């Protein structure tokens, strides 16, 4: 029986405005924190397979007429580094063809340490094999995100099959089943 839910790590490891790309069973998935909401997308653009989750995070933009910009600096648009196609962080829909072209998204959850401990006894969760440090380094240098992000200095991730979960902390989970 496949386990679909993975623990990424503690929620405070991805501060507001930051992101991390994690490796889940061979797939790279980007996890984003936007104003306390977490979004997860496959790090693969449906166009030519580019590293979507390394792209710029931008605001929502439209215009009813030339020169009339309607802009929301919500950083909910992810723009692929190759060819710049835009995708909504929440739905994964492409801007230019929302019905037809989309990036794969995954549901995220936050669970407390105690919930996790209880669930793990029933085999519901599997810890993250590891994070891609190299990727986060590059993200740090490109975007110079908010000071508190500082992803390049994140401590080494969890490489073991199991790790300690503290009941006081909250943890971020992605569900690859949906």
């Amino acid at each position, binding site marked *: 029986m496949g386990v679909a839910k993975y623990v990424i790590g503690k929620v405070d490891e991805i501060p507001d405005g930051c992101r991390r790309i994690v490796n889940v069973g061979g797939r790279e998935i980007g996890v984003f924190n936007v104003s306390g909401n977490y979004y997860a997308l496959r790090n693969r653009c449906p166009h030519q397979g580019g590293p979507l989750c390394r792209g710029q995070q931008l605001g929502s933009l439209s*215009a009813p007429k*030339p020169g009339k910009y309607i802009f929301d600096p919500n950083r909910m648009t992810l723009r692929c580094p190759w060819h*710049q196609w835009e995708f909504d962080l929440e739905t994964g829909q492409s801007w230019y063809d929302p019905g037809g072209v989309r990036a794969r998204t995954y549901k995220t959850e936050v669970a407390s340490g105690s919930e996790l401990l209880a669930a793990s006894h029933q085999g519901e969760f599997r810890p993250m094999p590891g994070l891609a440090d190299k990727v986060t380094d590059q993200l740090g240098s490109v975007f110079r995100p908010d000071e508190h992000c500082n992803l390049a200095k994140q401590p080494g991730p969890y490489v073991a099959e199991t790790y300690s979960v503290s009941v006081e902390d909250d943890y971020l989970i992605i569900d690859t089943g949906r």
Partner: protein
Amino acid sequence: MRTNLAQLGLTWFVQNAKLDLAADLGATTRFLERGVTDQVGRPKTAVVDADVHNEVPTIRTLMPYLSDYWQETVNSTAFDGADVRAFPPRLPTSTRTGAMPPNGVPGSDIDLLTRQALGPDVEVAILNCTYAVDAIHNPYAAAAVAAAINDWQIAEWLEREPRLRASIVVPSQNPELAAAEIARVGEHPGFVQVAVPARTAMPIGRLEFHPLFAAAVEHNLVVGVHAGGFSGYPTTAVGWPTYCIEDYAGMSTVMQTQVMSMLVEGLFVEFPKLRVAMFDTGCTWLPSFMSRLDKDWKGLRRETPWVLKQPSDYLREHIRFTTNPLDIPTQDMALIRALFDQMGGSEMLMHGTDYPHWEFKAQHDAFMSILTDDEYVDVIGGTARTFYQLSPQAARNSADA
């Protein structure tokens, strides 16, 4: 569709055979006078010729329509209107056999034009006057000459031949003055279009041109972009070319620039009712152009966020092209058919003889031969009739004007 090709191939062959027989000048002229479309094997349907060029012979022709000041200027100075032509009469591409009147300016003689371009099957012919008003740098002189041309068109073309419609000539280099001229004559029922040359000083999608488009839309006129344009700036993207053939061939690149400008500047978002026709362009560049622009837009659309759907969607809704010249490889019918489908089919194309310019008949005939009967009916008149909102009546009642 494929079974039709065999049938249509026969039609094409028959038409070509007729041309072979009509090799001498006299026979060609008689052939032309019989009707340029020759609907052998096709549904009988009234033809709309969406591209016929009337030309001003000389500034003298316009004298009755110029004010005293401008008449004196013509008489006492070296001013004689535009000193260039978009289609220099003696260029081998400018005049088809038999179409040169005694005054040396093809398209300037209404009788000859009527005989040669308005065959019995032609319901309406739309005149496209390419007089180079934009070559006149004095804006008031440009406006005065444009007004005189339009008054001349009304008096000596529209009032004389009810099957004709015409394009308002404007000083396109000054969109405000152009708008004023459109407002002045735009309600005349004979005018269906505003003529704009392709090589403007800046791309026509730009904000600066909005007054011209606003006026055209207000008066329910199509904006027709034709080959030509003499802003004074280099005629290509990479400077001044050397030979006439480069200017001639390069016109398609300028047309591409203009289409791109209108699409990405959101002209059709600003003016949802705007209709634009492009003449003398060739249009086999359309499929590659559309796919390239659509592709880039997907990645760059944040710079032009008012372009809410693929640029090619706006193009298909708002822009039409004519069938002469075409720039097709005449020996490959299947390819011509494929290109036609990629371009968008019969909804995108309007028959236009481009009279009096050289007719490249082999290309025209090869193209027509690949059309189904329904497509033929569209191209030969249906598309233009819809696009120009032409009255279903065969002749405009001039008493109502």
